[in-house]
């Protein structure tokens, strides 16, 4: 039995058993972990080059990282906003 078939089947099964909310949460969690790993940028540790002639690479990378973080949270706000929570807070039942 080819390994790819096993992986595909198990992924299909897991996606069927997960609710949409759980899938969203999973994707966001994975993206968050990837961003946290990218924060370490060990490859820039010794790099003293300048971007645009005045920003050290170590600073330019992390400035771009701040923009990436904002984009990430914009996506999260768009696709995983807890809208039911607001109705509940106002005294309306969420369900």
């Amino acid at each position, binding site marked *: 039995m080819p390994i790819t078939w096993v992986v595909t089947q198990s992924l299909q099964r897991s996606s069927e058993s997960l609710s949409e909310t759980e899938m969203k949460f999973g994707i966001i969690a994975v993206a968050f972990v990837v961003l946290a790993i990218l924060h370490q940028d060990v490859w820039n540790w010794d790099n003293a080059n300048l971007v645009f002639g005045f920003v050290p690479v170590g600073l330019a990378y992390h400035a771009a990282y*701040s923009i990436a973080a904002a984009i990430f949270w914009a996506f999260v706000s768009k696709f995983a906003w807890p809208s039911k929570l607001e109705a509940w807070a106002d005294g309306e039942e969420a369900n």
Partner: protein
Amino acid sequence: MYLHHSVILAQAAEPATKAAAPVTPLIIIVAYLGLLLGLALFSGRLFRGTSKDYFVASHSIGPFMLLMSVFGTTMTAFALVGSTGKAFQKGVGTYGLMASSSGLVHAACFFLIGIKVWAIAKRHGYVTQIQFFRNRFESSNLGYLLFPILVLLVIPYLLIGVIGSYRVLGPMTSGMFPSLFPATGPLDGSVPPWIIGLVICGVVLAYIFAGGSRAAAWANTFQTLVFMAMGVLAFIIISNALGGLGAAIEQANPAHLVRTPTEMGIQAPSGAFEREVGIPPLQFLTYMFIPLSVGMFPHLFQHWLTAKSAKSFKLTVIAHPLCIMVVWVPCVLIGLWATGVFTPNALDNWPPPVVTIMSGAEDAGVGKVLSVVIKFLVANPILVGLVTAGILAAIMSSLDSQFLCLGTIFTNDVVLHNQPEGKFSDKQIVLIARGFVVAVVLLTYVLSLVLKDVQNVFDLAIWSFSGFAALTSLVFCALFWKGATKAGAYACVIAVAVSWFYFFAKAGWGGEYTVFSSAERSDEGVMPVAICFFLGLIAMIVVSLFTKKPSQETIRKFFP
């Protein structure tokens, strides 16, 4: 380039010794404080007179003001003053260490914790963090355990703001009043700390007293816009003074342009010593736990509750990392440029404050770098005044929320707790809160004068943040784990408190400290916050698994 700087600095330093320095910067600062007071007192007129309005602005703050007040509260004096000083001391890694990680983690806390806390507090009428925890964990005594811990962690944070104002305004006003405030050393003729503290605390007290949370939100919005704009202004004028962006970075010390840990030799009048430059990898990794502190700051908790709706949080979550970038990138660059302006082997050429910075202990004077750079490199007193006003704005935008929050928790969690409903009228509650705010301001003022010469005051901030960050496991489990129990909560708080206190003592009560560091370098180990956080989390999980679960009523109340 080096000679050019020497001439500028010598010229700039000269008037201080011969005649009174121009008071234009001070006039601008007084005008700024007057404007702030006017705006905040105007907002106080919108105060509805109820305790709910005083504590949480009747849940009426919209997206933009929420962003500005949350961002302004999160960014302390450290955002402008400390970031420049830390970049001057450690180099380019300062931004990644403290700013970009905060962009990711702060927003995560606002999204995951802030919105849910807002919803629960609005639904059940909570105005403080302790009320939330008491009800979630069905324990009145948990509040009595948390109360002193939260207060003790906020106080150093408050002191940093007030002492920060002394360290900014002291050097800036040096030489202005030689006959009125004579002193020996570089601060001859400067406005003394007792006046600076009186004015700063007085202005903040005036608008918090009048308008509570609503006045704080208005004032913070104004202050945040001011300090963001002034940070950019400082960046532009300092880069021009150094011959442009390219020239400014070219003259910076090369060791500061990378994160590689190195030692920089300093030839000081008191003797030669070495300064640690760069960021060790393990510290860089574990420093990511520090921004979790926003999940437990009681003053931020109160700001969240002022939100009009959950949607108000959207702008805060998305724009917070960008606001951090706008403030921190220019300040870190200024710190890097300063390494080329104040070189370590020529201290005899620099004005006295610079010598103090460079020849002192490891962290001495780091908070003074920005004000010294501005004063001695930028000859224009108007710009000096504007940028200093920006620094004060950053300081005061945190102070007001902290004063208010301590007044709020003293009132609600100590005085009103366990009192029968209706014992105090709404007016009396506001009066009690105002009384506590005055008491907290007075205490902070006195403590700041007593402790103003403590060298490592900015390191105290990290210890304060570490305590709050480690406690974030408590709020996270409270919100997302139905199985988190009362005993688990106690275990979590005690584990965090004990481990934090242990590391704090090991650090010599407030110095820079990492665990598993080598004898050669104190910062190359693990940040204590990471260990405290995991100890708290493990204690919560293990104890909760074996103790009585919360009632179904509590579960229904907190898990919609």
